[in-house]
């Protein structure tokens, strides 16, 4: 019981400090940026402390919810296993499938660019498929392509293809009619208009798909592993360790998945800021 009170006090204290911090009007830009960074970190840390304190204080069995310290210990001691899983699921399945699926979606969008008929046919279908539980194809892909990573790649390709197709087609139509008229007065060719106007104008949409897909790809690969996999992989580890009630190992795996997902997303978002520096949403963020 004695762990609860300090933990709750710490959490309340951190919250009060945050309340105080966000009311400051810092003189310098650097100080303001520091505060913006400290507040969520403090909140996250206080949440971990609260978790640790409550679990210890109420003596929650580790099978239900292990304290963060135990997860951390487990994570450190199982690094080789976690790395092997990461390589199998993330480096082989996710990255290959993501690049293939996004690339295909982009190329098909360009290919049907000159055919309004195909666009009118594919766009509603693409939008429809994006709302479907596409992960459901996982058992079929496992049957067709086997237990190893190629079947996971197939699932990821199918999941990422349609969001990319829909966003690229929408993005290519995003240039204003005035901008397109301008290109016409120059008697610019289709290819020149594509490269110099419509692709740059489409980047924000394409990056939107790349960001959505970064999350979808990881989900697809992990869920596909629930349907059959060699004895390595993040999804495999989670489902077997859950079966053995090694919940701390599951949490360690989830921590790795969370880190991988966030870094993946972060990298895409960073590239987006560089490529679409001119877009109001990015400019506003920097000013």
């Amino acid at each position, binding site marked *: 019981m004695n762990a609860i009170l300090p933990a709750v006090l710490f959490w309340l204290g951190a919250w009060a400090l*945050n309340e105080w911090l966000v009311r400051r009007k810092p003189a310098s830009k650097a100080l303001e940026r520091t505060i913006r960074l400290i507040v969520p970190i403090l909140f*996250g840390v206080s949440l971990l402390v609260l978790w640790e304190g409550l679990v210890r204080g109420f003596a929650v069995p580790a099978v*239900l919810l292990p304290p963060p310290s135990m997860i951390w210990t487990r994570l450190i001691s199982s690094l080789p296993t976690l790395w092997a899983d990461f390589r199998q699921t993330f480096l082989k399945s996710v990255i290959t499938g993501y690049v293939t699926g996004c690339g295909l979606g982009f190329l098909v969008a360009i290919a049907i660019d000159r055919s309004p008929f195909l666009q009118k046919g594919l766009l509603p279908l693409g939008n429809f498929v994006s709302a479907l*539980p596409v992960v*459901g194809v996982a*058992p079929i892909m496992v049957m067709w392509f086997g237990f190893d990573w190629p079947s996971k790649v197939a699932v990821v390709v199918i999941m990422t293809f349609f969001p990319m197709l829909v966003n690229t087609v929408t993005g290519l139509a995003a240039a204003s009619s005035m901008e397109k008229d301008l290109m016409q007065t120059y008697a610019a060719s289709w290819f020149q208009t594509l490269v110099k106007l419509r692709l740059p104008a489409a980047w924000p949409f394409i990056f939107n798909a790349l960001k959505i897909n970064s999350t979808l790809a990881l*989900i697809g690969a992990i*869920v596909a592993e629930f349907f059959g996999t060699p004895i390595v992989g993040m999804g495999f580890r989670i*489902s077997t360790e859950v079966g053995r009630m090694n919940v701390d190992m599951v949490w360690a795996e989830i921590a790795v998945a969370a880190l991988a997902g966030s870094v993946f997303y972060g990298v895409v978002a960073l590239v987006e800021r560089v490529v679409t520096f001119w877009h109001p949403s990015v400019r506003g963020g920097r000013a």
Partner: protein
Amino acid sequence: MTNREKIVPVLTILAALLAVWYAAVVFLNAPFERDTAARAGTTISFSEIVPRTMAQARPVLPAPHQVMAELWDTTINKPVTSKRSLVYHAWITLSATLVGFGLGTLLGIALAVGIVHNRAMDRSLMPWIIASQTIPILAIAPMIIVVLNAIGIAGLLPKALISTYLSFFPIAVGMVKGLRSPEQIQLDLMRTYNASPSQLFWKLRWPASMPYLFTSLKVAVAISLVGAIVGELPTGAVAGLGARLLAGSYYGQTVQIWSALFMAAGLAAVLVLIVGAAHSAVLRRMGVRP
């Protein structure tokens, strides 16, 4: 005229997909027929193979009409309470989806209201909410199911919780955007009226957030269904569409997998359509032209 212009391309693409599907059925299922014939010591002509590829019990790829027949058989011909009825399994999944979706919507809206009205909540929670969207949340699903099972909570609730967990993120993020969408001049106008915070909320922020809410709801309801289906995987395939998928993959019943997939797709379509209809109904009542 305009409707036909919209429908004809879609139907053409669908017809093309169907043709590709049938061609793939012949191509993928033919090796099995050739093997069978070779084992029996006979040769088999192409015209004999084609009809057989569409009538296998466990084809690599079932023909569309096989899937349709299975769908018909398991929805119309079976009593709804039977464990062999697809309607029964769809209902199991749908109920978990709806409960989870409802809880997720309430939680998401509550969180968004808190974030918009409290700076500390905004600054400390918002980065985590955004970061959590990048995490493969579905990975936690098996653990939630099994852990809740261990403490005696089984059935609908654990699956619904996964759906809740999945659906509250898009709603919270969308609603924060929506509640903040009124422009400064509109806020200033309310200020000149000396409107109370609750008046400001109900007369400006809430109506302004409606388009954002419904856009998020469409995403959330689709992902709720995914959550419920995935939530059925680790429980050992008892009931629900996810269980049908898993059982089908255990026993190689491809026709069963495909019909469960089509049922799930149909369910998703109906749910998104209902949310879409509610969306346009609310917008029409608010005087926005569709």
